[in-house]
């Protein structure tokens, strides 16, 4: 059952392709929103540019659809100006890690209270399948016709190193676990990132002969491993697999609250 009321049903049908994982991620988000009782009037959804970022238009909240890569910078302004608002960024691997990479590391470094859901389809979907910073080596893309030479980012390790205080990876093939990560990320008081493995059958799947959306979900399941299981495996066994789980979950002072505190102190004196 999809929880009602959080979706702008008048905006449907959505623009996603058949088999795209982003719709499943949206469903997980709706479940999580209901679970944590996400306040309808006190939450702002912010997107960058990409298929993933467009999801903000389907959510029945204040929504801000911004420029490519910069969603986190807009979100930072919202959170600093009104720390009582919950700010959620929906973004893609290209949006967040390529053009927006600098904003990602600095938002994580500040530990600003923004939740980032990165729908990672390992390519640029909206612009029809170019390679992205998370495309694995050797995979094909319209701009990698001989196989991708770039080394991919591990977004979770990147966010952790930059100072994020909640970091998790889930996949749309495991939607209940994903919804749980979303719920924790939505209620975390600090910078939270969930890296969401989400297949793009139209471009990445077709070009790399990974089959349709359903086949790609199976492929994704076979090429992922839980954090607990990963601990017992050798590096050889882990090669080519992404680890799913919660990597970071800790409390540290949130940045917007620190700014507010400064005003309280200096304004009073």
């Amino acid at each position, binding site marked *: 059952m999809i929880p009602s009321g959080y979706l702008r049903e008048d905006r449907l049908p959505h623009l996603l392709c058949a088999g795209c994982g982003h719709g499943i991620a949206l469903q997980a988000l709706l479940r999580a929103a209901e679970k944590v009782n996400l306040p309808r009037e006190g939450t702002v959804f912010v997107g960058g540019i990409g298929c993933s970022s467009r999801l903000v238009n389907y959510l029945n909240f*204040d929504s*801000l659809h911004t*420029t490519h890569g910069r969603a986190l910078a807009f979100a930072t302004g919202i959170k600093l100006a009104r720390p009582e608002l919950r700010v959620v960024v929906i973004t893609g691997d290209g949006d967040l890690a390529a053009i927006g990479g600098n904003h990602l590391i600095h938002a994580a470094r500040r530990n600003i209270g923004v939740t980032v859901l990165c729908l990672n389809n390992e390519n640029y979907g909206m612009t029809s399948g170019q390679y992205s910073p998370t495309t694995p080596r050797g995979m094909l893309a319209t701009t990698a016709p001989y196989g991708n030479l770039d080394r991919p980012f591990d977004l979770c390790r990147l966010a952790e190193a930059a100072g994020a205080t909640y970091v998790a990876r889930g996949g749309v093939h495991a939607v209940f676990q994903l919804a749980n990560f979303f719920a924790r990320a939505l209620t975390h008081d600090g910078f939270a990132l969930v890296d969401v493995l989400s297949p793009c059958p139209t471009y990445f799947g077709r070009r790399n002969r990974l089959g349709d959306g359903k086949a790609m979900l199976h492929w994704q399941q076979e090429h992922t491993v839980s954090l607990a299981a990963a601990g017992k495996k050798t590096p050889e066994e882990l090669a080519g697999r992404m680890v799913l789980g919660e990597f970071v979950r800790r409390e540290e002072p949130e940045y917007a609250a620190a700014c507010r505190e400064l005003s309280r102190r200096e304004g009073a004196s």
Partner: protein
Amino acid sequence: MRLLQGNEACAEGALYAGCRFFAGYPITPSSEIAEHLARRMPQVGGTFVQMEDEIASLAACIGASLTGVKAMTATSGPGFSLKQEHIGFAAMAEVPCVVVDAQRAGPSTGMPTSPAQGDVQQARWGTHGDHPVVVYSPWSVQETFELTVRAFNVAETLRVPVILLLDEVVAHMREGVELPAPGRMPVLERSRPTGDPAAYRSYACAPGEDVPPMADFGAGFRMAVTGLTHDESGFPSGRPAVADALVRRLAGKVERRVGELAAVDGRYLEDAQIVLISFGCTARAGLRAVRLARERGLPVGLLRLIGLWPFPDRAVAELAGRVRGMLVAEMNLGQVRREVERAARGACPVAGHHRVDGELMNPEELLAALEVLA
């Protein structure tokens, strides 16, 4: 009377206008604005943040403004180039904000500590697509304060980005400033929706109006904002008629108000036969040159441009019809002269005096150039 630097006056003007959010990235010759506001913002309950770059700074300002907080960023030369993407976003999504550009000699990194006026056309056309902007350029520290307040008033009431083009001289010089008591200068607010939140459409104007009321994020109106072409609901639309109506309304907001937006300051113009046209720091030398010319009996006047965009076509055209010639003095290779020529429509000859060496113009060189025309 207080002795203030131009940049400090800009910062204080912003606070007077109700600005409570500043995001910036350090760059000469604008950094003092950020430094001043880093100290002052917490004292007045506002927020200062140093972002990771200029793109992020304006993005943060737009985010803050969408929550109902007046916001400003400040930069210079290379940073102004980085602002362009989000100047376009603010114009398209109609988010009030003020962008200060303390001009320095370019192109590129150029001469960081030398004055220039080379960003006039970039301020107008730096971001892609047809879009509205309003640009002011003060010539003194006092006027910097006043125009900063005015910039906020225009940004808030028209829902447009307003650009304040300072130059290194105005930004860094110190002058006595009379700070108006609260309430002395008008401080205007954006219009907010008052009706039923459920019936609110983010970009619907009242009948006969061209600026839609703006809700604050978090106020219960479920505002939808996008940089994509959108209809009155605020959601993306690819319909040609929607695109046409939107782009024309956005441009029209400013064009229709050119009379109130395009401010000029005329001196000795009643009987002038030759008009010197200038703005910003260059107009200071210009006024002196005009006075020297008058002492020598030359019928010279000064038209100082306070608002650069929308361009004061009417004022220029009116003068062009009754004088023998015009001289445009500016620290670039002819960015305002091109507009003066356009507005004069050949009614009188238009000459230019241009410097791009990072050196201030002095009254004597302008006097010599005026004497050639007279």
